[in-house]
């Protein structure tokens, strides 16, 4: 095992981490402001991927596809918020889970109806298609590096949006006391729609970016959604900063675990068994990490409103 290979895996882990952050940020924002658990967030991720792939195939431009996916995901989010989600804010979590689960079923079938059951493929933009040379003569896919940078830029932008702008002030106020900010004349219904559309756009953005690495297929958002839940539990629900830290931890632990565990175990047992046991253990690693965090910090690493 070389240092270069190790560095490559660290970058892969960071790339997974920023993806998870884009998902977890939207989820935690929606939970923090509206108190809603949204299973359909993975569907918005899927919509981002499908719209980007379809528009890119049609126009030949990845960038037009990316813009279209942001608009489509935000629009789908706003539409769903107005039609369904808005009725769920005052309901208990069971109703929220079931209603958004129903939305997952409907979104998946609707996408299957429109795009068919076969996966779509999306090429990254031409100038990002090749590798770049990192220090130490390590070739690394330029597109993956661009995802890391894009994710960190979005994270910084989101941080600024929430801490510096008027909208961010209203979001923070909404988290603290929603009756009060409604009494102060803020249109709370509109604010909720905006927050939901913002979270949806983040998910759609993540889905579009991932679409050029994996195939774009039905249900692509579901594993990411559940990983994002793990991120939120570890980071502390409602905390954007916690989501960022936890997303990077989860991304790194998952990627490095899959890379290192089979190698480490091969010292103790024969190679094929080590690969099997190692990969099985690696797939459980982040959940075990979550269990450990729960034992010591049941409210997560960065509990909001603590």
């Amino acid at each position, binding site marked *: 095992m070389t240092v270069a290979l190790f560095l490559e895996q660290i970058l892969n882990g960071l790339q997974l981490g920023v993806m998870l952050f884009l998902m977890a940020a939207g989820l935690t924002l929606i939970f923090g402001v509206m108190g809603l658990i949204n299973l359909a967030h993975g569907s918005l991720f899927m919509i981002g991927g499908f719209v980007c792939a379809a528009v890119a195939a049609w126009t030949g431009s990845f960038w037009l596809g990316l813009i279209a996916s942001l608009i489509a995901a935000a629009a789908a989010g706003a539409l769903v918020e107005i039609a369904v989600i808005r009725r769920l804010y005052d309901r208990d979590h069971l109703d929220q889970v079931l209603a958004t689960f129903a939305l997952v079923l*409907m979104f998946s079938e609707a996408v299957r109806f429109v795009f068919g059951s076969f996966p779509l493929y999306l090429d990254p933009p031409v100038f990002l298609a090749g590798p770049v040379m990192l220090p130490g003569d390590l070739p690394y896919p330029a597109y993956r590096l661009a995802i890391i940078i894009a994710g960190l830029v979005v994270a910084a932008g989101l941080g600024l949006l929430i801490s510096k702008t008027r909208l961010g002030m209203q979001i923070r106020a909404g988290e603290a006391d929603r009756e009060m900010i409604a009494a102060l004349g803020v249109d709370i219904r509109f604010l909720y729609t905006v927050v939901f559309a913002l979270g949806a756009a983040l998910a759609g953005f993540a889905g579009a970016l991932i679409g050029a690495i994996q195939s774009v297929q039905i249900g692509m958002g579901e594993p990411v959604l559940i990983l994002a839940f*793990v991120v939120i539990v570890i980071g502390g629900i409602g905390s954007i900063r916690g989501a960022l830290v936890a997303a990077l931890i989860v991304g790194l632990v998952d990627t490095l675990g899959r890379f290192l565990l089979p190698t480490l175990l091969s010292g103790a047992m024969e190679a094929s068994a080590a690969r099997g046991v190692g990969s099985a253990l690696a797939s459980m690693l982040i959940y075990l990490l*979550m269990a450990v965090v729960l034992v010591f910090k049941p409210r997560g690493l960065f509990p909001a409103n603590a």
Partner: protein
Amino acid sequence: MRDLITEHRLNILLALILLGGPLIAHFADEPFLVTLATRATILALAGVGLNIALGLGGLVSFGHAAFFGLGGYAVGILASHHQNYEPLMTAPFLINGSNQMLVLWLVAIVVSGLAALFIGALSLRTSGVYFIMITLAFAQMIYYFAISWPAYGGEDGLSIYVRNTFPGINTLRPLDFFLLSYAVLMLVLIAQWRLTGARFGIALQAVRQNEGRVAALGLSPYRIKLAAFVISGMITGLAGALYADLNRFVSPTMMSWHLSGEIMVFIILGGVARLFGPVVGACLFVLFEHVFGSFTTHWQFFLGAALLAVVLFAKGGFIGLVAGRARHD
């Protein structure tokens, strides 16, 4: 408004319909319908398990497919060792596979109970939305483990070539297997009915309504919830064991989060915390799948739409609609 029928009478009626339907189908020589009813019965049992945690205890577990799958795998693994004449382990002592349902069920119940103890002990440290996400995450952990563990088929699953045996009946005949599943379901329902009125059941419902008061009375809400969660996981595990024998096949799909959602759907369709809620819900679900599935491959879209309508506009589900709100009689 006067209710159409009391819940108690409705339950007896439902139990008779579920028994009578497959009997008629059997004598009309429609074995497929008998198997369909068996599927509904077993899924209902999984729902009954979840209903104890979710309905009585208010514990919204989104990970019950894990127990369902573990119960199934317990049967699949032991049966595969039996059919290959391979002991499960030889050291420190010999454990052979088995094809006796009674043994397999016991193992399934113990395995899923232990898993529920582990998952419950950790996730009950939290509540509300955390609990939902954590149960979902742990179920996903077991799901990925089943996929990546190569010894028992991994992603491809595991076949059981001949249905396991039960003393005195021929489980290969659809009606016999249906009656066996039906008997298990009824026994569990009677046990739940007794439990609901017993000290433990009352304490559990009190925890759902006001945890602080229960603690003030000197009871430990955590232990009550954990016990309920373990019982709930065991019943769902037993359902998984039966399901494995119904399909003669187990695969990681039994543990997918879609199945966790579907078990929850049974409860909401039939009525949360109602004794026969999951039974009605599972039957409606299987009928829906069968009827709409024969018209369109996109039947899940309509399932989603129906579920959304029930959640938004018809709280109380079928039993709430017919028998009115739950009463303490």
